[in-house]
């Protein structure tokens, strides 16, 4: 199926996701779509697969203009998308999931569905038990099921968003074979990825997006240097960094193993000194969050130690980490960090315990809140509900709510979605903490931010972790290779 996306524009508020993107994919072609986080890849594919609408632009499928109004509409015209996290119903069986979205009468006929599933599995070498509960499957198997489901629904274009994160090497080989077969039969495939090796071994051609724009198209064979250059652009000169004495150990991690439903990190060693800033680079969902949550005591590691001073806290409850001055500022501010519906004053009263014993001292909470609002330049009143604050002000409030003295401060994307001046303010505040001896560990997908503020950078790619590299000497090119999974 031939896909033409013409001059696609899409904004989310002030954020430009796509700005005049053109993309043409021939029938039978496997096209790689590359770019940093926030480059606009996922938005573009969500527009094509009906999850969202473009503000402007045209979509032509086999030469006919059609703007999918929903995922169901997209699949009806033959466009199916495989998401990074499987979008299935984990409680149902493989066969039930396979049948979801199929049209037909009231009565669900089991036998033809079973035959169709078995036929598809046989064709691609997938081994799926139709009666197994989907929740018990590996991510790779769930992906196979989803692919089979989309094909059974008549997909003639398959979009895959970072499909190889969290699946095993044999599953990856099987997936790539299946995609190559499908392309030979005339299906078009869009492969959204950041992994250079995979793009090189699978794709016929590659489109690179940067900051919402199409910055280049290449035909196989690809030159890795050229791809990295297109993806990350030129290195900015690093800003002057205040010299802070880094002394003594703040945190030591030894042979840490931690996993969630998708990823596993194994054998991570890390030594962070007082006053040091450690940046965690890599595409989102490559394991950075998992490591931070383990260090904050939110996720229990399977093995290894987390030493604060001489004390091993691995396996201890979250409160033990808090008591020793470890705090995490989450990226999901209103989901994990604050309580929508409660005011700023109520937040300060909760976190700083104004008053004695049982009774709250509201006047004290009020004056504390006013002080902090002034000190952190929060645009809001003590009685403003936190969910009514802008993102930048929520982030300032989160920082204001932290205890004054911390040993280790972990931050997920501390400046994501903030304007430049807010981001600068946040960093000046964080660097002041560092001067008081707090070790900072932060994730970011912005290489400039990582290079500007980190002393050392660790790169994550699909659950693998690089040794920390010194930020002042590393180049964007080298980081790009590491993020692309080379040299890990």
């Amino acid at each position, binding site marked *: 199926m031939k896909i033409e996306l013409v001059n696609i524009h899409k904004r989310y508020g002030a954020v430009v996701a796509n700005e005049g993107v053109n993309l043409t994919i021939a029938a039978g072609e496997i096209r790689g779509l590359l770019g940093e986080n926030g480059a606009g890849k996922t938005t573009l594919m969500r527009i094509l697969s009906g999850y969202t609408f473009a503000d402007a632009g045209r979509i032509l499928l086999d030469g006919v203009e059609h703007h999918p109004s929903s995922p169901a509409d997209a699949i009806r015209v033959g466009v199916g998308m495989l998401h990074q996290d499987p979008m299935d119903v984990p409680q149902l069986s493989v066969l039930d999931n396979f049948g979801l979205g199929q049209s037909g009468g009231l009565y669900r006929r089991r036998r033809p569905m079973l035959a169709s599933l078995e036929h598809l599995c046989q064709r691609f070498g997938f081994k799926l038990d139709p009666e197994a509960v989907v929740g018990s499957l590996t991510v790779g198997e769930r992906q196979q099921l989803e692919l089979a489901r989309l094909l059974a629904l008549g997909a003639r274009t398959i979009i895959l968003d970072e499909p190889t994160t969290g699946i095993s090497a044999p599953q990856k080989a099987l997936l790539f074979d299946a995609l190559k077969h499908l392309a030979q039969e005339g299906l078009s495939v869009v492969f959204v990825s950041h992994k250079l090796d995979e793009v090189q071994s699978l794709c016929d051609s590659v489109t690179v997006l940067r900051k919402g724009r199409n910055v280049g198209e290449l035909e196989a064979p690809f030159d890795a240097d050229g791809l990295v250059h297109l993806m990350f652009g030129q290195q900015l000169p690093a800003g002057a960094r205040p010299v802070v004495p880094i002394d003594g150990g703040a945190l030591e991690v030894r042979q840490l193993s931690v996993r969630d439903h998708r990823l596993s990190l194994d054998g991570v060693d890390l030594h962070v000194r007082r006053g040091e800033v450690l940046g965690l680079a890599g595409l989102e969902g490559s394991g950075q969050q998992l490591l931070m949550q383990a260090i904050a005591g*939110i996720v229990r590691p399977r093995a290894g130690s987390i030493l604060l001073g001489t004390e091993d806290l691995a396996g201890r409850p*979250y*409160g033990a980490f*808090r008591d020793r001055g470890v705090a*995490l500022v*989450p990226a999901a501010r*209103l*989901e*994990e*960090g*604050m*309580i*929508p*519906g*409660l005011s700023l004053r*109520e937040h300060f*009263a*909760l*976190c700083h*315990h104004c*008053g004695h014993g*049982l*009774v*709250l001292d*509201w006047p004290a909470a009020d004056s504390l809140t006013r002080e902090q609002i002034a000190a952190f330049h929060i645009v809001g009143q003590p009685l403003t509900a936190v969910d009514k604050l802008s993102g930048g002000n929520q982030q300032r409030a989160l920082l204001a709510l932290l205890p004054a003295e911390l040993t280790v401060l972990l931050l997920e994307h501390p400046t994501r979605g903030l304007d430049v001046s807010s981001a600068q303010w946040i960093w000046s505040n964080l660097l002041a903490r560092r001067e008081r001896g707090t070790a900072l560990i932060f994730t970011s997908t912005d290489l400039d931010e990582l290079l500007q503020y980190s002393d050392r950078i660790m790169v994550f790619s699909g659950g693998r972790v690089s040794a920390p590299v010194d930020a002042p000497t590393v180049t964007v090119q080298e980081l790009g290779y590491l993020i692309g999974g080379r040299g890990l």
Partner: protein
Amino acid sequence: MKRSGVTQLALMLSPVVVTLLFATLILLAAGANPLEAFGNILAGAFGSAKKWGDIAVVMVPLALCAAGMLVTFAAGLWNIGVEGQIVAGALAATWVALGVQGPPWLILPLTLLAGAAGGAVLGVVIGALRTWGRVNEIFAGLGMNFVMVALTNYLIFGPWRPPDGATMSGTEPFPLAARMPMIGSSRASLVSIGLAVAALFIVYFLLRDTHWGLRLKAIGLNSAAAARMGINTHREMIVAFVVCGLMAGIAGSLQTTAVYFRLIPQVSGGYGYLSQLVVLLSGLRAVAVPLIVFFFGAVQVGSPRLELRMQLDSSLGGILQASMVLFFFLIKGWRQRLADRKERNA
């Protein structure tokens, strides 16, 4: 959005007006004169001084349970088990009333303490099921309600049956030392009314001015973030069920010592379920509870007169109470939708 006081009042009263219209339609369909019916309810509720005492008898358990449920609702918990907590309080109070001999000044406080403890114990059970057992509190509470009804029947027909044989009318009457004093010749007790008022004040204070109340609100609005802030969410949830149980247990205790003077099979009188409606209507504000329980009490006391005077079924009272809640939420949801649409168009 600022609104004038008049508009605010009109919006608040709109569910009442719609409910009355709805009831009028039902009455017309039944071939009755609506004005006559409403008049009869009013006369039934306020016709004599004694009626005010009857209304208070309904208001007390409703207010006590509503006060308790304001606490669990604040923590985002739907404590259906309040009905069972009333029964637990009644059973504990009966155990004291039938088993302990002594003067009233000793027995009556003991029945109240026992009742509070009974409700609290059930609160621990429901809370533990919810937190450690990961059983949804609605199922835990509903299950315990059935258990408590079965336990009541077992006790009435077993260990606590009267000497002259067990009947559905309950245990033998309590000794005089285990009966609350009444106000004059009415059925209302000053102790009961005092406890209900105190419970509402205590809950109002707990939720507004204590660290614990603020922690409960935080848990109710976002338990994940509350846990990240270092709040022991499991412990606070269990304590919330316990506090609710204390109040429901006192209500149950009073049902035996101040209303029926014995343990009867349906001792809770459905007040646990009815009080859920009270709390929903109050918008989780303690200050609104007295007015609502007064309305519920008046309807409850007034509607039997429909049957006596007009040969209508007295269940019209129940229809009024329940449809009021439905219209309240319908109108609330409809206003929300209008506001959303306005925001989208802006």
